[in-house]
Each structure stands twice: as structure tokens, then as C-alpha cells.
């Protein structure tokens, strides 16, 4: 299976190479933009499909939690871009989450996880959440004990891992599933790869503004964000305008305890951003339009005209990719 994926990847890459050459004229059109701050997602990634399939089942399994009531999908909603449509997640008997739940898509391309960049890797992220009494209130051992009561799980694990159902294998399966959550081939990625008509003229204008207004100073790279920390409110004070103060607003300060990290957050990825409302760490922006307006205001000190906002939102909507070959 893995071999097949690699093989398909190779064919895809070769195909892309050929296509890029055959669309010289389009490439030249983009050349005027120079070095692009944004990069398309790779069309294929390597992962163990059998493990990922098992991980997908576990991702929806409430037995992973200490009281068998909370599953990963309770916050990372499948039908909501793997994020939560509520500003703060609120699940069975757990306190309300301090921050808005971010999407799990394309996490493998982020170099730090969480709004405050608390987690250095997917491993440390999931280990911490499993133990966290406000989240899973569990441990890999408890989860494994719950799962081993069910014959079908024992059988499934035997099919995937030589040593069957173990705490370490439960963890590995979920991690593999998380790594498989990649959404390539967004219209904008196709545009970057030279397909000039992949996005609307509005979106193209939005992309130009995205760069010239300075959004891409922070939202850049393959994940369009996620590789730099930035203060929320560079030119204007967001928290003063919002009115109340919350400990989570301190952001990275809660991790480093350094003064310069107050109100500093990991710049979120904008991939599939159209699907993951509400926005910001506090979920205060209910729509993409509000989020764009707020960002322009507080980060760039600008008020957007309606046309500009429409163009920017059109661009952001072109960032929605495909999962398992189907547009999200």
C-alpha cells in the first residue's frame, strides 16, 4: 500500500514537471511576482495507510478518554474542516476550552502546535492532551485497557501491528492518521503550479493584495502561516477594543513567561480557512470577512474597502484543498 502511494506520488510529481513545462506562458505571467511567499502543498505525502485507517477509527473513539465520553472528533469536527464551529469547544462534562480549536488538517507542515506554540511536535501535543484532565483525562494505558475489551479492536490491531493492541501502537496509529490529514490541490495551489484559470480574477487580485498589504509577511510558506510568532495587535490594540481580558490572551507568554511574548501567538495556517470559522484564538471573528477586517485593522493599521475585502476573501476561499481526492 505504502509502495503504491510512493509510486503514485512519483507519477504525480513527474506529471507536474511535465505540466509545468507545457504551461510556460502561465509561468512567465507569475514570474512578474518574483519569489513567491506561498508554496503549494505537495500532492502526495508518505504515510502508512493501514495504520492511518486504524488511527481514523480511534480518532472518533470516545473510549480513548478516561470516562469514555470524549473523542478527538468532539472538538475537531469532521464536517467543519477538522475544527470546532463554536468559539470555544464545550464537550461532555469538560470545562470550556480556553481557546478556539484549530484544524487538524495539514498539521504535519506546522513546526509548532497550539495557539501559543506550546507543542514542539504532534507527539508531545497528543501525549499532553491525553493526560490533560480538561481534555481526554486519560492515558495511553487507560485507553488501551478500554479498547482491549472490544474484540474487533484486538483483531484490527493484530492486522496492522505484529504485537497487536498495545499502548504504544494506539498512539502510533493516531499519529499516523494525523500525518495523513493533508489537503492538497487547492485551486490556489493549482494556480501556483501554473493553472492560471484555477482561481477567479477576484482571488488573483486578493492574492496580490495579500502580498502588498503585508499579510504574507506572516502568513507564508507551504502552510500559509504556522512558521512564525507574532503579536496580536501590532498597530492597534485588539484586546482594549474587545473589552475584557482572558488569561489565554497572553498567548506565548504562558509558555515562555517572557515579557516580549505577551499577546504573541503562533500565526495560524490559512489553509482551508474558509471552513474553520470562527476565527482567532478566542473565536471572536465569526466570519471570514470579520477576520480579514480585524487583521487589516489591528495588524496592518488599515481599513479595507468592500471591494478589497471581497477580493481577499475570494483569495482565502481558494485555499480550500481536497481530502482524499475530493474538495472539502
Amino acid at each position: 500500500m505504502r509502495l503504491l502511494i510512493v509510486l503514485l506520488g512519483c507519477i504525480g510529481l513527474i506529471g507536474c514537471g511535465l505540466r509545468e513545462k507545457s504551461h510556460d506562458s502561465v509561468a512567465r505571467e507569475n514570474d512578474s511576482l518574483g519569489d513567491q511567499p506561498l508554496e503549494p502543498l505537495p500532492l502526495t505525502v508518505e504515510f502508512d495507510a493501514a495504520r492511518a485507517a486504524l488511527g481514523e477509527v480511534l480518532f472518533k473513539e470516545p473510549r480513548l478518554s478516561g470516562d469514555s465520553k470524549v473523542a478527538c472528533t468532539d472538538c475537531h469536527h469532521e464536517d467543519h474542516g477538522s475544527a470546532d464551529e463554536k468559539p470555544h469547544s464545550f464537550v461532555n462534562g469538560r470545562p470550556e476550552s480556553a481557546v478556539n480549536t484549530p484544524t487538524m488538517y495539514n498539521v504535519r507542515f506546522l513546526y509548532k502546535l497550539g495557539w501559543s506554540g506550546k507543542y514542539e511536535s504532534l507527539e508531545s501535543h497528543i501525549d499532553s492532551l491525553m493526560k490533560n484532565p480538561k481534555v481526554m483525562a486519560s492515558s495511553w494505558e487507560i485507553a488501551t485497557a478500554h479498547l482491549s475489551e472490544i474484540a474487533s479492536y484486538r483483531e484490527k490491531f493484530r492486522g496492522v501491528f505484529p504485537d497487536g493492541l498495545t499502548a504504544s501502537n494506539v498512539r502510533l496509529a493516531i499519529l499516523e492518521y494525523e500525518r495523513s490529514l493533508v489537503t492538497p490541490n487547492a485551486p490556489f495551489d493549482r494556480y501556483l503550479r501554473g493553472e492560471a484559470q484555477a482561481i477567479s480574477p477576484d482571488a488573483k487580485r486578493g492574492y496580490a493584495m495579500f502580498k502588498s498589504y503585508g499579510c504574507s509577511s506572516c502568513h507564508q510558506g507551504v502552510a500559509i502561516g504556522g512558521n512564525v510568532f507574532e503579536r496580536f495587535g501590532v498597530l492597534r490594540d485588539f484586546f482594549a477594543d474587545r473589552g475584557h481580558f482572558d488569561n489565554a490572551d497572553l498567548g506565548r507568554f504562558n509558555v515562555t513567561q517572557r515579557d516580549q511574548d505577551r499577546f504573541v501567538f503562533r500565526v495560524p495556517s490559512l489553509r482551508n480557512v474558509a471552513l474553520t470559522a470562527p476565527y482567532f484564538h478566542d473565536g471572536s471573528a465569526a466570519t471570514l470577512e470579520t477576520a480579514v477586517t480585524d487583521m487589516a485593522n489591528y495588524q496592518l493599521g488599515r481599513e479595507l474597502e468592500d471591494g478589497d475585502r471581497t477580493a481577499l476573501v475570494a483569495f482565502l476561499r481558494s485555499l480550500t484543498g481536497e481530502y482524499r481526492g475530493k474538495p472539502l
Partner: protein
Amino acid sequence: MNMSSVLRSSLALGVAAFLGLLTYSAVHSMNYTEEAAYSRDLRRVQAATAELNERVLKSRSALMAQYDPLVRALRDLRELHERLKRVPEFLGNDAAFELRAQLEESEAQLRQKDELVESFKTHNSVLQNSLHYFPVLANSVIDRARIEPSGADVASRIQALISAIMLFDTSADAESTSRVLAAQVDLSTAKQAARELKLDRELELILAHSRLILERKPTTDGIVHQILAVPLSRMALALEDAYSMHYRAATDRALILRQILFSLALATVVLGLTDVILRVRRSALALEVATGELRQANAALAREREKERQLGELKTRFVAMTSHEFRTPLSVIVSSAELLENYSDRWEPERRLDHLERIRSAAGSMGRMLDDILIIGRAEAGMLRASPALMHLDEFCKHLVESLEHSSARSHCIRYTFTGDPRVTLDERLLSEVVGNLLSNALKYSPPGSQVHFDVVANDEQCRFEVRDQGIGIPEADIPRLFQSFFRASNADQIKGSGLGLAVVKKALDVQNGTIEVQSRLGHGTKFVVQVPRDLSVSRLSSTDL
């Protein structure tokens, strides 16, 4: 401890040392793939550091529009450090300890660099945005201000700020800083005019960006300097130097080890060969000795067998002889006795006497034979002893000659001579055996009428007896065995005899310290010469003295 055990112990020691060192060298052997991978990683630390620095500078100069390459370079460096902690085993524990200590120091520097880069990205994003946006914004405001005649003043103040910022962006010294500050103050005083032109919010934004540039540029540049100052590259160089040093030491050690191994193998082979050669030589020697012993044993066995065979032969002959020799006189006795029993009353006294004489003679011959056998038997059992006594030799000899001449019925004549002092101390009985046997043989093997010479000389030391006949003689080949019991010369078959006479002579002479010599010509005669010490008691005394 002998030579061979020393040799074998050294051999065992050599083999043990060789195997030990071989195992050691196998465990600590240089893994060239591992070594190549490790030194490649070491060089990559430098390359990745240089790349990171270059990317920071490019980001700072807005030549690179995204931070992914920075993030990747840092991740590469972290992974490299993690990999480098697995120091190749062949370098040894000291090297691993030193390299790991250096790596930990380098990792601390990397963490510092990581934090600085993090900070750089944050500040640089804002700075780049302002540097990019400030002139665009400012120029658009100038354009809008110049539409109105009253906007010229505001436009010129904004223009002054643009110039100050541009100068600041290139030099950032005290003078350009104060110029920006002055231009900012100057522009701030035009707020009222801007409000009238409905450009007050834009003016605020221009001022905000200028303040950001003024604040973030020195900060960002300071961070860049700090990033470049982190001695990660120098540490990587030092790490590589330390590694090369340990690598050279390890290769030297491996070389020495190889030489020792080679020498040990050589020594072991030499020792082993010496041992083998020595063993072969020793076993050849042992074989030779064993062969010699075996040959001797075989010869002894053959001699024994020969003796046994001769003894058996003698016994057979003895039985044959005795039965024959005893039967003849016995039959004479038996027949004469029967005749006497049946016819004595009818016979004349002469005839009776004749038969009685026959019985007596036969019994006498049997007695003599028994005497001979007894003497030989006693001599062989070591029980024959001489009993010397003073005697008159001449008388003794004369008497003997007479009795022999008498018993041979005077068919032979014995020419007897005696010279010297006749008083000797000898064993008369043994002497009579010697001389009597020699003389009776001479008579027996000589044709009737022939002369037998018997000359006796008694000088101061010795008594010499010479018996000479003109008889049948003795074949040369028979002379060596002449004195064996029951041996009879090959030409004596026709003449009666027991083959004991000369054996008795020899035995009797042996106990008297006497000697006997024989000379013979077949068909012409035989000469025996006997010598005996004159005084046997003195000679025996002197012999015990010796």
C-alpha cells in the same frame, strides 16, 4: 618446567592473546560507513549553519519572502546534533565523552540561535511590512494631499519623513535617527491640516509605520547581529577538529593493534611450528630407541629360543643316551643273572666267575656313568667343589695309567713321563676324573697297538698334563661344542660312548681353576693340554684375595 612445557604455555598464551585482541578489534573495528556518515554530518553542521545565516540575511533584506527555509535549516541542525550524539564506537569512550560534551555546548548555542531566529522572524515580519508599506502609503497620501492647494505643506512634511526614513534605513546612526524623530514631530504638528484634508487617519498610519521602522529596524538588526555572532559555526569547526584528532588516534590505534595482531599470529605460528618440529624429532628418537630395544629383545628371544632348542635337544639326547647306555649294562646284568640262576649248578666255576665278572663290570660302568652325570649335575647346580689335599702326583698318575692299561687289556701302550716336584695340593677325585677321562678317550679312539703319550710336568706354579694319541681325530667344526654334555663328534658314531666324559673334564677343571686346550687333525690324532694350579688351596685363597 622443561623446554616443551614453556613452549606450549607460550603457544597457548599467544593463541589466547591473539583471539582476545581479535575479538577486541572486531568489536572496536572501524566502521567506514559509520565514519563517513558521521564526518558528513559534522560537515553538514557547518553547511547548515552557513545556510541558516544566509537565509536570515536574505529574510532581513527582503530577498526571501517566507520563513519555511529558516525553519527547515533549524530543524536540520537539531536533527544533526541528535544524530551526532551517537559517536562511532571505534573512537573509544574518551572521544565519545569529549565529543558529546562539545555537542551539548553546541546544542546550547543552537537553542540560543533558535530563540533569536524566532524573535527575528517576529520583528522582521513587522519591519518588512512597514518598510514595504510605508513608502506606498506615504506617497499615496502625498498624491491625495496635493490635490488641494492647502495640502502642499502636509505633503512636504510627509516627503521629509520619507527622506528621513530612507536615510535611516540605510545608515541607522544617531543623526538619521534624530532626523526621523524631528520629521515625525514636524508631521505631528500638521494633524489639524490633515484633518481638514480628511487625511488624519492616514497621517496617523504613516506616523505609526515610521515609528515601527524606527523601533524595529535597530531591534531586528541587533538580533541579526546576535544570530550571526552565535559561535555555532566555530563550534562545528572545533567539533570537526576534535573528531579528526580522535579519528586519527583511533586509526593509529587500529594500525598498532593490527601490527600486534600480525606479530602475535606470526609468533604463534612460529611457536606452533617449533613445537611440532620438536615433537616430531622427539617421537623419531623414541621410535629409534624402541626399535633398538625391540631388536635387542628379539635377539635375546632368539638366543633364548636357540638355547631352549639346544637344551631340548640335549634332553632328548640325554634320555636316548641314558636309556641306551644304561640298558646295555643292565641287559648284561639281567642276562648273566638269569644264566647264573638257571645254570650255575651245572657250570664250571670259571664260567660262573666270568658271568659274575660281567655283572660286576656292567654295574661298574653304570656306576661310572652315574658318577659322571652326578658331577655334571652338581657342577651345573653350582654344588661341585674342589677339596684339595696334599698328594703325590707321580704316584697318582702311575696308578691311573696302570689301571687303564689293565682295563684296556693291554691293547694300548701308554708312554708316561713325569718331571718336577710330585708333591702337589689338588683334589685327587676331580683330578682322576680329568686325567682318567682324557686317557680312556685316547685309548678308546685310537686303533689297537697305537701309542698314547701322557706327559706330566709339575713346575712351581702349574701342573701341566699332556695327552697325545694317534686316533681318529676330531672334525674342526665339532671342536667348539666338544665339552657339551652328550655331545659326540660326528666321526665317533661307531664307538661306544656317553658323550659325558669331556663335559665332566671341563666341569672338574672349572672348579679347579684349570684350563684345557685341544689340537686335533682328523685321522691323525688329538692332543689335549690341561693346566691346573699346583697348589689349589693357595690358588683358591689368592683368587678370593683378588
